[in-house]
């Protein structure tokens, strides 16, 4: 089956390349990622994923990632 999977990817190269180009053309610098995320969200939903969108500004790595004795 792995050969079929790899062959499938080869057959769909044009779509895979177009998909990345589409993502690039969706503005997402300076912390804006909304349009590109909408694309990702739609794709995941179509594949049958349970999805969640979230944002937690109160937590930054500076606050949490400081546990010298914990690990």
């Amino acid at each position, binding site marked *: 089956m792995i050969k079929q999977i790899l062959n499938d990817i080869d057959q769909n190269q044009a779509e*895979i390349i177009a998909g990345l180009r589409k*993502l690039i053309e969706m503005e997402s610098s300076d*912390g*804006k990622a909304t349009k590109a995320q909408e694309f*990702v969200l739609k794709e995941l939903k179509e594949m049958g*994923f349970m999805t*969640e969108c979230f*944002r937690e500004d109160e937590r930054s790595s*500076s606050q949490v990632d400081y546990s010298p004795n914990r690990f």
Partner: protein
Amino acid sequence: MNEVHLKWIIPPTDFEYHPEAYNVAGTIKGKGTVPSLMLFSHIDTEAENYFGKFENPYQSTIHDGKIIGLGASDDKGGVAMMLYAVKTLLKYVPQLPYDLCVMSILGKHGGGFGTLSALMKGYTGENSIYLHPAETGHGFAEIKNISLGVVDLDISVKGKPGKLHDDLSEGVNAAVLISYLVTYLEKYNQQMRDKNRFDFGSFKGEPSFILNVGTIEAKGGYGGINQRAKCCVRIRFYKPLTIEGVVEDLSKYLKECCEKEGKVNFADVIIERGSFRATPAQVETEDPFVQLIEKKITDVTGIHQFIHQYHGGSDIRLPMLYGKSHCVGIGPACALPQQNSGQMEWISIDDYINGVKILASILFEYCNFDQK
């Protein structure tokens, strides 16, 4: 530690996301006969004008076997690889034996707003892959399995005004004092690099400690005596060193230097927390999950020799530290503007397609994965 000199200030706010930006996580429940798996990469890019070279950053072009555009490699290429690999796999294996989590996250601020937030919400996998290009340019020959600890520090020193603004007979110029401190920092760096070396892996014998003075700041103009000068320092380190231990040790060293040399009064030195800190983490190269990834890369690309690479504060640390996950970073050949003389960001089309194949192969083979 001298509490007067070491002030941990409130978290810095040097980066803010657009109010509407958000993370996306998707999960598929499997049969549960194989350990869970998580894939993640970041959707946001560098700022449009970060490198000042993009005439139209949101235009993608194809040239010389490359897809060129802002985010091509960092890290929309990673997001696209995840989507197309998973999509292909699910066509052939609609009912997975493992729980699969796929995340497109916000990557800035050391993963604090993205990967870390997701982990704190409970998203993880017993094994995980961070799809991100190798910043070193190694492409799929690089297995990112070590995340060095990081601590950023702002070290400042107070000067003393003279009777007149340029009176050096009574005044003390902080710009001169900071130059002494930078000399001490360089000595400390050398001492720590001699003492701390990797005792395993691709970088065995090389220093596992890096202290970099990124900025020296004093604003006295040409003739003024600076009453305060600052340098910004990033320290990267590996176990058994810890963030707290490194800061304590450095503080002690600077105090000793100041007292011994007599040029700077340590009471005038202030060490404050900078913008980033990260705890070191690592997954062993002998880990069965690492072995599986390497095997699939070899199958697709023919690469046999791997570089087990360290990075400073990589997102791979977060699933390891907070999600109990074996996490590895892999990615295609690409160029980031900072490694490409400020020129365009690109991703190799062949390697991008190979990346989808590698990931799909891993996802497929993982259906029979045995962690032992």
